[in-house]
């Protein structure tokens, strides 16, 4: 039971990363590699701030802000420097690896004997692992609620239009570069926040914590899409958070089959690859069905003649 509760909690905390990634990957429609750097950045900033006496909750605000700066760096390289967005993200991600070491002062830093959001009296009183569920649900509700409101404003609509049809958005006077920068900032802010929360939940930050997180975020988005199907944009935000939880369950099952922690990245990649191929196979299957049906109908027509 506690394993399931823990998976739900982890899924929710990672779900924030998924929602952040959703803004760039799905709404703006480009892959943002910055997340592999902004995730450990958020973790490092949060943990380093706490060890310097900053309140754990405030440290998360700093993690969010640091993530936003990372997103801005990628955005400026992309929109003003005309560096291809994939490369811009990789550049920032690589640079952040060094920056994160400086922030931590070493490769990893523990929160042992330090205050921590999850050591809060109220949360500590909950049964084991319910603390992360509690925090995760609260965070997802606030974040999804704010985003849903934002996406229905004129600014939010201009943001969506930028990802949907940039030429049209420009012809309507939307400053598309500003929209992309804004999207990258908010997305990486959320990724940084997710990093900070997970670091506090784990009790440490590690500079290598970012490796493969983009796969985890994408898995949440894609699983949400494959499982829940056609949804409105607002619903898809929630579907991503739920997809993140489902992804944790998949991991639980796979680990239960006897795979070790060292196989985790391989498994994440395989899970994502399979999920990405589902729509293609599904379509091919449907086409086969349709073809079969068509053939049968012609046969019938023939036999009636």
């Amino acid at each position, binding site marked *: 039971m506690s394993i399931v509760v823990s998976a739900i909690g982890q899924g929710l905390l990672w779900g924030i990363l998924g929602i952040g990634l959703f803004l760039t990957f799905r709404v703006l429609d480009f892959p943002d590699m910055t997340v592999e750097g902004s995730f450990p950045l958020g973790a490092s900033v949060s943990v380093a701030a706490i060890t310097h006496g900053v309140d754990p909750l405030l440290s998360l605000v700093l993690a969010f802000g640091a993530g936003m700066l990372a997103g801005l760096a990628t955005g400026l390289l992309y929109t003003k420097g005309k560096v291809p967005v994939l490369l811009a993200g990789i550049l920032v991600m690589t640079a952040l690896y060094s920056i994160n070491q400086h922030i931590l002062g070493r490769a990893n830093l523990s929160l042992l004997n330090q205050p921590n959001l999850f050591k809060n009296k109220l949360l500590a009183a909950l049964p084991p692992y319910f603390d992360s569920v509690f925090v995760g649900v609260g965070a997802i509700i606030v974040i999804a609620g704010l985003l849903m409101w*934002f996406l*229905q*404003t*004129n*600014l939010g*609509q*201009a943001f*969506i*239009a930028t990802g*949907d*049809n940039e*030429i*049209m*958005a*420009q*012809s*309507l*006077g*939307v*400053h*598309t570069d500003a929209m992309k920068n804004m999207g990258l900032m908010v997305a990486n802010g959320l990724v940084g926040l997710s990093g900070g929360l997970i670091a506090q939940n784990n009790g440490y930050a590690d500079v290598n914590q970012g490796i493969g997180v983009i796969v985890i975020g994408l898995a949440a988005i894609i699983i949400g899409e494959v499982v829940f199907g056609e949804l409105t944009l607002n619903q898809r935000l929630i579907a991503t958070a739920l997809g993140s939880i489902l992804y944790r369950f998949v991991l639980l099952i796979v680990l239960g089959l006897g795979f070790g922690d060292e196989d985790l990245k391989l498994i994440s990649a395989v899970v994502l690859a399979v999920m990405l191929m589902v729509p293609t196979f599904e379509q091919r299957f449907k086409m086969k069905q349709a073809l079969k049906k068509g053939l049968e109908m012609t046969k019938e027509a023939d036999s009636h003649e």
Partner: protein
Amino acid sequence: MSDAAVAIQNLQVTVHQQNQTKVILDNVDLTIAPGDFVTVLGTNGAGKSTLFNAIAGNLPATGRVQLAGVDVTTMSAIQRARYIARVFQDPKLGTAGRMTVAENLVLAQHRGERRTLAGRHLEAARPRLKKEAAQFGNGLEDLLDSPTETLSGGQRQSLALLMAVQKDPALLLLDEHTAALDPHTSAQLMALTDRVIKERHLTALMITHRMDDALKYGNRLIVMESGHLKADYNAASKAKLQRADLLEFFD
């Protein structure tokens, strides 16, 4: 000339290719009176699209462009969107495919404005949008909540036109906007375009390859050739113009 809707002086566009400089729009002067509907003819490469791109600010150009008395020469394409609305040839370009018809219309309602955190007020606008969409007679009014990518090409282009005129632009640019449609739908959209321009007293430039459309619609016709304005017919001379007269430009 401040009462002109469009005043273009010495508009020139040059491109550099393999150490060669080529002038693709050569010192074009063009003044258009308010409410004029000008059709633009010319062969491929005559500079029609270049003229549009230069007016809209999508191409680096020298010369001056004034719209409704405002000098937009130093403005970017995005800033010029306040004055210029454009309907493209490709139905996919004019609308945001994953957004619904109503969302697209509300987006266009704020053309050239600062996008703020104010609500989009889709529901309040719905009755008006429904009424506007209904004037096309192609069922667009029943598709307000459908993503535009599910629409037919004709429906998408009529939506693009409706979006373009939402805020009565100082200049409407129609860039072969019926070319991708079948003849019947194309004729329908052309008639509608003409009606909308007249009703709203818009100033419009329309590129077309359909000579009959160029003759039938608008009150002025210009012919472009290798970056120049080759011919310019006003309402009176355009009325006398025959298909054969124009064919000589296309030898």
